[in-house]
């Protein structure tokens, strides 16, 4: 009996909460695929009872109603008419499903999406940087060689200019122009801006902007120097300087830098602890709006401000493309996009982050003072790395050394970083996916050397649970470090490279072991690799296809590649007289070892059997029938899923039919797949057999 399409569509609409509850609708060969706004309005039981709906399930944020080949399109048309929803493509439905994720989940997911493509760059750099910077800690002489300087340059390029990589990748995620995004990224690390890593250092700020240093502070610094180093400074140094500069305004940094390097660095390190950046007048600004200006500081090491800037840029660019007349679009849109984004970035995003940085700094300083605080800091430290706020910590460390001679911040940071290493290593060991493994291993090594970005962004944060396990490990390790009063008289290193400097090497090793161990064990037990099952069920066209490599039929009009994996047999050996006799055309049989039929050449689907077990494809005069199993028409579609519809253009290797060998066997039929050129009589030079 023919189905009343209208009635079916009306009932579906009724039980899903009406047309207003539909975000988008599409259909494939057999199913109506809907993205629903409010799933609670769905009456699932009633839906299943609707005549014409053979089954329903929810997958990937879609409500899928199985209706059947040949009918689904008619029900779909009626459904659109009934609900007033406009037709959507399958891709639209997928996009809508992705956008249906809760907003916080989408936000959490975005940095991972952006970081995955740039992983090779930061994993390589992170590992190299960790090694290159660790060597001088053990072999100080190496630090003065040309090799060290050169390797350091190579290793830290990706990190020093990270915002550029992030900007380009973010533009691809947000759909903005990658070149404009690159400009934004480059602007944020422009050499005319102070390197963000130096923004907390008196030496860095004074030298970069030529800020004079108060005379008294310089005198105190010189007086405090080791006598041997002080001997390098000419006696009348300050008098000479006074002849060139007005010392009442302070000592120019270039004067200090003109001293022998040992003396200069001694003075600077004293000044770094005795003064703050504010004491020398702070970071210079571009005066833009009266007294309000933009700090001349870059975004080295930052990630989140770059992502926000490119997000804004991409939205603005799209909007402008829409409203700017086409004639002037080419120059107006990029110009306005870059200018507005730059202004917004430096006036709003930048200052908000610098305020945030200051609070983080104050909070971190306060936390590091107590044992419980250290525990908390050990846990939240990776979040500050994630937000790119960690480059301010040098200031805390320098302050601690100046006050007590012992940097007790380092054990906290080490515990946190080493815990991320442990979690990442656990992923590397446990994960089956070869690609993830190949990222996780070098990323964990780099983390053990104190460069945690690859491990955090590339692995732990992406899977989230390892990140949380790492937080736990960091907390335990940091508590241990605080309990035993661990510390070091140096700053700027963590993890393995810090070993030679710590005040108690055995206990420090125990701390690292605890931090990494806790994170490692927790990750091994708590984190499970997500199986890509959902994906297997729903082959995506953008998924790289595994192309068949064996041809089974060749003729003048083209080549037929093997559409199903398995053993190729002669047509005559197909266990069915009709196929074997060649009545349906020449070809081969395949005894399948897998359950997927793929397109044997680029072509058009000419027919799909109602019972989904056979499919016709045409191209260049070749008419091909792929028939799965013998007598399987009697199974009436049970055990078969057709992934394409009549009229679809398909590419070589594209999945066409999924079938269950088990069900075919259970029904008592042979699962031999007949691959036949039905018009082989009209084709020239037909030759069959695997080759």
């Amino acid at each position, binding site marked *: 009996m023919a189905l009343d399409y209208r009635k079916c569509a009306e009932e579906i609409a009724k039980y899903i909460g009406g047309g207003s509850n539909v975000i988008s609708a599409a259909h494939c060969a057999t199913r109506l695929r809907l993205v629903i706004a409010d799933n609670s309005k769905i009456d699932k039981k009633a839906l299943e009872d609707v005549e014409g709906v053979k089954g329903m399930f929810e997958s990937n944020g879609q409500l899928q109603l199985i209706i059947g080949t040949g009918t689904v399109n008619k029900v779909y048309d009626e459904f659109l008419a009934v609900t007033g929803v406009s037709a959507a493509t399958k891709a639209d439905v997928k996009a809508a499903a992705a956008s249906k994720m809760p907003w916080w989940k989408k936000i959490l997911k975005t940095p991972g999406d952006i970081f995955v493509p740039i992983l090779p760059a930061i994993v390589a750099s992170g590992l190299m940087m960790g090694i290159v910077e660790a060597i001088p800690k053990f072999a100080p002489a190496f630090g003065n060689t040309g090799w060290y300087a050169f390797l350091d340059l190579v290793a830290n390029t990706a990190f020093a200019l990270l915002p550029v990589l992030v900007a380009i990748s973010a533009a691809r995620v947000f759909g903005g122009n990658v070149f404009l995004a690159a400009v934004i990224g480059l602007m944020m690390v422009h050499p005319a801006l102070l390197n963000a890593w130096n923004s907390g250092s008196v030496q860095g700020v004074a030298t970069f902007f030529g800020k004079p240093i108060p005379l008294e502070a310089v005198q105190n610094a010189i007086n405090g120097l080791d006598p041997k180093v002080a001997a390098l400074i000419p006696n009348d140094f300050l008098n000479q300087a006074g002849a060139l500069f007005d010392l009442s305004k302070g000592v120019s940094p270039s004067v200090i830098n003109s001293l022998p390097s040992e003396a200069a660095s001694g003075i600077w390190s004293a000044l770094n602890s005795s003064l703050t950046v504010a004491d020398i007048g702070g970071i210079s600004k571009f005066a833009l709006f009266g007294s309000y200006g933009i700090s001349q500081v870059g975004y080295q090491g930052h990630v989140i401000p770059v992502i926000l800037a490119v997000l804004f840029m991409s939205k603005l660019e799209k909007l402008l493309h829409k409203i700017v007349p086409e004639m002037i679009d080419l120059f107006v849109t990029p110009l306005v996009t870059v200018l507005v984004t730059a202004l917004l970035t430096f006036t709003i995003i930048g200052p908000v982050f610098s305020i945030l940085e200051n609070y983080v700094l104050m909070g971190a300083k306060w936390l590091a003072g107590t044992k419980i605080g250290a525990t908390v800091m050990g846990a939240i430290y990776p979040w500050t790395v994630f937000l790119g706020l960690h480059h301010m910590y040098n200031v805390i460390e320098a302050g601690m050394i100046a006050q007590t001679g012992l940097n007790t911040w380092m054990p906290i940071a080490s515990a946190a970083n080493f815990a991320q290493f442990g979690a990442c290593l656990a992923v590397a060991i446990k994960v089956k996916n070869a690609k993830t493994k190949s990222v996780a291993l070098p990323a964990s090594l780099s983390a053990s050397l104190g460069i945690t970005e690859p491990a955090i962004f590339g692995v732990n944060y992406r899977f989230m649970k390892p990140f949380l396990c790492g937080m736990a490990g960091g907390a335990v390790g940091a508590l241990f470090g605080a309990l035993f009063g661990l510390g070091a008289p140096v700053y700027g290193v963590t993890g393995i490279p810090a070993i030679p400097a710590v005040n108690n090497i055995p206990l420090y090793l125990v701390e690292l072991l605890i931090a990494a161990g806790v994170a490692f064990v927790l990750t091994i037990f708590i984190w499970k690799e997500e199986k890509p099952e959902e994906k297997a069920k729903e082959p995506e066209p953008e998924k790289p296809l595994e192309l068949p490599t064996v041809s089974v039929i060749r003729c003048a009009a083209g080549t037929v590649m093997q559409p199903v994996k398995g053993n190729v047999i002669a047509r005559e050996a197909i266990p069915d007289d009709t196929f074997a006799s060649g009545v349906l055309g020449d070809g081969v049989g395949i005894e399948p070892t897998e359950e997927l039929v793929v397109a044997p050449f680029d072509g058009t689907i000419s027919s799909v*059997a109602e019972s989904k077990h056979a499919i016709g494809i045409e191209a260049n005069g070749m*008419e091909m029938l792929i028939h799965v199993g013998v007598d399987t028409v009697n199974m009436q579609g049970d055990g078969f899923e057709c992934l394409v519809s009549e009229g679809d253009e398909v590419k070589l290797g594209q999945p066409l039919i999924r079938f269950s060998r088990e069900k075919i066997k259970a029904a008592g039929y042979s699962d031999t797949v007949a691959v036949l050129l039905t018009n082989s009589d009209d084709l020239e030079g037909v030759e069959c057999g695997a080759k």
Partner: protein
Amino acid sequence: MKSFEYTITDPVGIHARPAGILVKEIKKFASTVTVNKGEKSVNALKLMALMGMGIKQGDTIRIDVEGADEETAAAEIEAFFKANL
């Protein structure tokens, strides 16, 4: 041109095997045979097109036979349908 109508009784309709033997039968004649279902019509020698019509049990189709031997062809093909489909 000779035409006749036929209602399919074969439970699987004109699917691969029945279509194959139908094509084999039709090839014996010089006439052009067209199978019509609703508004669709195909050359009965085009196996894939024939199967693509999705002719099922209970469907009524019209077969047009046109050519030098249409008289005998139509009669034999109709007999073939009755015997096999």
